[in-house]
């Protein structure tokens, strides 16, 4: 009658495993980082290989203010997670709102920069290799900022209407990992595009 074997079921005390949300996000970051590396390699490979202008030196200016905004949003999202851990929900909402605001400023800065480049300097993705690699690399990063902002805004809404509580702090931490990654990528993009490539 016995169809299946029976495994002894002794309680293994202290059996704790890593959080699957964090492990999953780390994997996603590894995959995303590989995509960015390929785009960065393409950018570096094509520096100075455009057959026509404009060149980066002609048209790019250092986006110092928006960079400061984006990098400091890493601190605010971290503060939001800490606040939620201590069940300070209002404080959490405040820090999340600050993060969304700072990320929004960064995105607006990128939009303004692209507007200038397209309408005043005549640089599009079709113009030359610089245009091709610049818009694709910065655009890929901006896409990630947009995705992050949508998720942060959702978190903000849930925080404001009280749906997000102390027990969700691990989920918010997973989201914050993504946001830190987006910021770290910007450091690389900034160095490659605006410092090394200019």
């Amino acid at each position, binding site marked *: 009658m016995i169809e299946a074997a*029976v495994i*002894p079921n002794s309680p293994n005390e202290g059996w704790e495993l890593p959080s699957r949300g964090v492990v999953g996000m780390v994997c996603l970051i590894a995959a995303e980082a590989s995509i960015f590396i390929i785009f960065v390699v393409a950018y570096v490979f094509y520096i100075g290989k455009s057959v026509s202008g404009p060149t980066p030196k002609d048209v790019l200016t250092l986006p110092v203010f928006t960079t400061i905004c984006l990098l400091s949003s890493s601190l605010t999202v971290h503060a939001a997670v800490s606040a939620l851990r201590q069940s300070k929900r209002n404080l959490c909402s405040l820090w999340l709102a600050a993060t969304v605001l700072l990320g929004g400023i960064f995105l607006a800065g990128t939009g303004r920069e692209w507007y200038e480049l397209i309408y005043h300097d005549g640089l599009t993705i079709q113009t030359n290799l610089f245009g091709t690699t610049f818009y*694709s690399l910065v655009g890929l990063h901006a896409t990630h900022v947009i995705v992050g902002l949508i998720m942060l805004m959702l978190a903000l809404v849930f925080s404001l209407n009280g749906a997000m509580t102390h027990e969700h702090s691990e989920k918010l931490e997973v989201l914050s990992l993504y946001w830190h990654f987006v910021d770290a990528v910007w450091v690389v993009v900034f160095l490659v595009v605006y410092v090394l490539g200019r």
Partner: protein
Amino acid sequence: MATQTPVTEVLDLTVEKAPQRRWLEVLHDWVTTVDHKKIGLMYIGYALFFLVVAGFEALLMRVQLAVPNNHFVSPQVFNRLFTMHGTTMVFFVGMPILFGFGNYLIPLMIGARDMAFPRLNAFSFWISAFGGLLLYFSYFGGSGLYGAGSAPDVGWFAYAPLTAQVFSPGHSTDYWTLSLLLTGIGTIGTSLNIVATAICMRCPGMKMSRLPLLVWLYLVTSCMVFVAVSPLTAAQIMLMLDRYLGSHFFDTQAGGSAVLWMHFFWIFGHPEVYILILPAFAFANEIIPVFSRKAIFGYPAMVAASVGIGFISLSVWAHHMFAVGMGPGANTFFVLATMAVSVPTGIKIFNWLATLWGGKIRFTVSMMFAVGFLFQFLIAGLTGIMLSVAPFDWQLTGSYFVVAHFHYVLVGAILFMLFSAFYYWYPKMSGRMLSETMGKWHFWLFLIGFHLTFDFMHVPGLLGMPRRIYTYEADRGWMIWNMVVSSGAIFQTIATLLFVYNMVWSYFKGEVAGADPWDAWTLEWSTTSPPATYNFAKIPSVASRRPLWDLKHPEDPDSHYETTEKPGGEERP
């Protein structure tokens, strides 16, 4: 030793009523499922469907090449055939079938009730499946319905600038790009899931040092997917930008580089081979010990070798590009890296041999395929080392010798091990044994067909026959060889059809398997066949690498010998 829980507490003995269900309900059940076993079976079924499709494409090509000056298919159709055959076999047969087995087995082997992210699992499957349909939709939509459609014809590695809008007008190349992009998303989703499952869902007592080797190898494969498949995704995005928005990544006239595409493609392409072969190794790691009636030889060395293969395989990609002219420095590096990868692979082969050594070997069909795998994989590896020598590669790159080499890996090693896995786990998945008689016919017919085709395919390659030509002249001296190669394809076709028939026949008429037909040692054999939706009524708890051995031999448990942790030393959970 823990006290044994009475059977009644572990097994759910309530008899499940199986009322006649409408087919729509069954369909709804499968489409909306998040159960890892059903998703695994869907992956396998989907891959088997495409295996037949892509195998049929191969058969058409072999008919075309059987005799010189043949006009069985036109050159255009031939180009589409090899493109579709390669793309389908790698992305819609190899990857899904391996993920199917992984999905099915990993939670069962680590004593979990499902994957870490069940809904992501379903999403990954359906997006991959959609990718496959999109690729084949190009037969209708490639040039629009009025242009009667056309499949992509740029080859499976789609070298630039052939893929540029000027040289590949119409939408067939776009379908190719989009389908690979979507499958890539699905692949990364499933790999993420496998890593999270293997790390975070283990049952109590299942330390990393007790993880079944199959799970270890899937872990390594999945980690490789993140760094290998993502570059392909990035390259496909660039190609899409080139084709749709007029950017210049691979546009040589605007200063773009065609060689850059080769690098990006092979940064994916070569690790991909290891992504496909590591799960085959994983099956061998489970099957060979069970049919040798011995524990695997050198468990830690096997893990270390797998991780080593994972790392080294990321630095060998440019051995596909020796003929491009990368210069002596780069050539030397990639020659040495490619040769180095054979060291951990050799460790694995020796460990399998040592597992067989002195064992009480049971030659079931599953074991026969596994032994075939061992020898054929060795030969495939040896021709690989020949090709890794740059000057030798200059002579033979783009010839049928290369085609013979990688088919020896993909068919002789991976497909043989997959057949072995089917005979081994089919009883668990369906509750019935596959017919051993039909299985033996399948094995011998396939073995003969395989060697007729792929042993003799090396020769026209050495005689200078280039790959991807649609026909050849009679006076080249390739005639007899191509005839032999094509005749082998017929044996393989018959054997595969027999295998499909065996699976269908055994599902209804096969011998009832019971929970543990092979007297095996890993946790999946402790559940009923097929397992209940919840896998384990109670989460098991293990004390060694072979929990079922401990259970069957309480007087001599493995846990007795595996206490490698020093007292008071650090124990990794």
